[in-house]
């Protein structure tokens, strides 16, 4: 009996370290964030009582808030919409047989392993008005732009951070799509070819429907990653100039840790949390396995 009793508690014992860690670092802070969002907190971080929806009202009446939500949407949608088709194309090419395929695959995947902080740091240098290589590159095409403050003007700064976002999204999406393509049975493709299916039609009628589940997951994971992404914008522009590249995520950081408005920061966090919950729900729906 004792043995049986001990064995019943065993799996819980094995789960204990994980549960403690997740509760301590994720669940408690989530609860704390919820409480802070409805509390008055001074600049020193001391809570002075509940204040209802005051923090949320302060956010919603700030004209910056709709601007930031709009930019977050542009940032997320633009990167996904540009990176996904390029990645599918790239995966299709990488799935064919050619010399140098292995090295091409490694090169495409490699940037994903590098910290986004470093990539963003280098882009800051590349876009330097005087000493950056971006001007050199445009110079190759006869366009002389030396002195242009690429990251100092709202539109070009937003385009620049989005372009870097696209660049850092392609490796992951391509690799996942490629994995999807490799799982397409060769005889299905062969049969379609026998029926005279080629090129675009083959892709649209045969390949695309087969890899749709992979693409759905890859796109969803991308949306979440991009929405969550902090270092690209923070390192390149810190949300500037004039908040033109600010996203919800960098704004949470700025309100909380630069302005020390903890209550409003917590309210923003709750908004980000709700959006993430929605995406996580979709992710679970897409990936949950049979054995659940």
């Amino acid at each position, binding site marked *: 009996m004792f043995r049986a009793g001990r064995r019943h508690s*065993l*799996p*819980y*014992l*094995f*789960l204990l*370290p*994980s549960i403690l*860690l*997740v509760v301590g670092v*994720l669940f408690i*802070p989530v609860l*704390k964030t919820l409480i*802070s969002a409805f509390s008055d907190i001074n600049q020193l*971080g001391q809570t002075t009582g509940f204040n209802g929806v005051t923090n949320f009202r302060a956010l919603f009446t700030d004209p910056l808030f709709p601007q930031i939500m709009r930019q977050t949407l542009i940032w997320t949608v633009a990167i996904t919409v540009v990176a996904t088709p390029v990645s599918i194309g790239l995966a299709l*090419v990488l799935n*064919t047989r*050619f010399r140098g395929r292995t090295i091409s695959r490694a*090169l*495409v995947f*490699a940037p*994903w*392993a*590098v*910290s986004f902080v*470093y990539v963003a*740091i*280098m*882009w*800051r240098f590349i876009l330097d008005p*005087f*000493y950056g*290589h971006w001007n*050199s590159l445009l110079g190759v095409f006869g366009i002389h732009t*030396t002195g242009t403050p690429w990251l100092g003007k709202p539109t070009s700064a937003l385009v620049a951070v989005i372009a870097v976002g696209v*660049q850092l999204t*392609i*490796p992951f999406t391509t690799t996942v799509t490629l*994995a*999807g393509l490799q799982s397409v049975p060769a005889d299905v493709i062969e049969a379609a070819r026998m029926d005279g299916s080629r090129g675009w039609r083959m892709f649209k009628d045969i390949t695309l429907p087969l890899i749709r589940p*992979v693409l759905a*997951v890859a796109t969803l*994971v991308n949306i*979440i990653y991009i929405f*969550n992404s902090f*270092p690209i914008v*923070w390192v390149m522009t810190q949300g500037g100039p004039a908040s033109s590249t600010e996203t919800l*995520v960098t704004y949470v950081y700025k309100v909380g*840790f630069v302005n020390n408005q*903890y209550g409003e920061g917590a309210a923003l*966090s709750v908004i980000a*949390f709700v959006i*993430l919950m929605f995406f*996580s*729900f979709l*992710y*679970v729906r*897409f*990936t949950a*396995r049979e054995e659940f």
Partner: protein
Amino acid sequence: MSATSGSAARRRIGTSVKYLFLAVVIASVLFPAVVVAATSLKPAGEVYSSPPGWLPAHLQWSNYITMFRQVPLGHAFLNSVLVAGGATVVVLVCALPAGYALARFSFPGRRAVLFSTLAIIMFSPITVVIALFQLFSDYGLVDQWYAASLADAAFTLPFCLWIMTGYFQTIPRDLDEAARMDGASMGRVFFEILLPLTLPGIATVLIFAFVQAWNDFLIASILLTNQSGYPLTVAMFDFVGQHGVQWQYVSGAVLLSSIPVLVLFLFVQRFLVRGLTVGAVK
């Protein structure tokens, strides 16, 4: 006749377009890497010429030595090793037994744990950083490297646990049952039969957890506020923000800090992709 040569020509154009597209994308993905490598070897005069040339006219290898006096590399490197190493240990200590329990036992709450794991894989630190900072300050954990390790570990754990559980499930149950019949204890079965068989999975989790923590910026910049405790990512960002930043040294430092994790990551690429698209790729 003309139809065949027409389709051959079309195929040749198709092939050229394919290679061109591949070349353009790879070139754009590698563009920053080329700039980093070239700049890291340029003398200051070449770095600060406008517009800069592509390749160094004169290779100044000594940059890689001078760099260590300019960029706080040594110290930050050590901090990164501590934070990322600590996070890896924590992830392993949590994910190994938990993955084993989820794969081998049936118990009330198992489905709930699996479900929650999947649900928080996509959880981002940004939603809790403010509260995390407050919580850790209350316990005097701010500016302790192991606090950053714990936080990094917590955010990586769900994915690692998911992969680990999957790995344990790939090993036939008969194997450990047979060993149990022969009188081996549960501990022996775990350490001598299961662990060796799941080594690829363990390596994947280990490398993934290490690289995630190594590359982390947000958690470290919030929990490690003291310059002497900065890991590489934060130190580098801080350095770039200073006046008179010397890009040839930054480039060298970026290159040196990226290569080790790049190599590690390429090793486990295949397993990570399989883990991330669980269920979708069969």
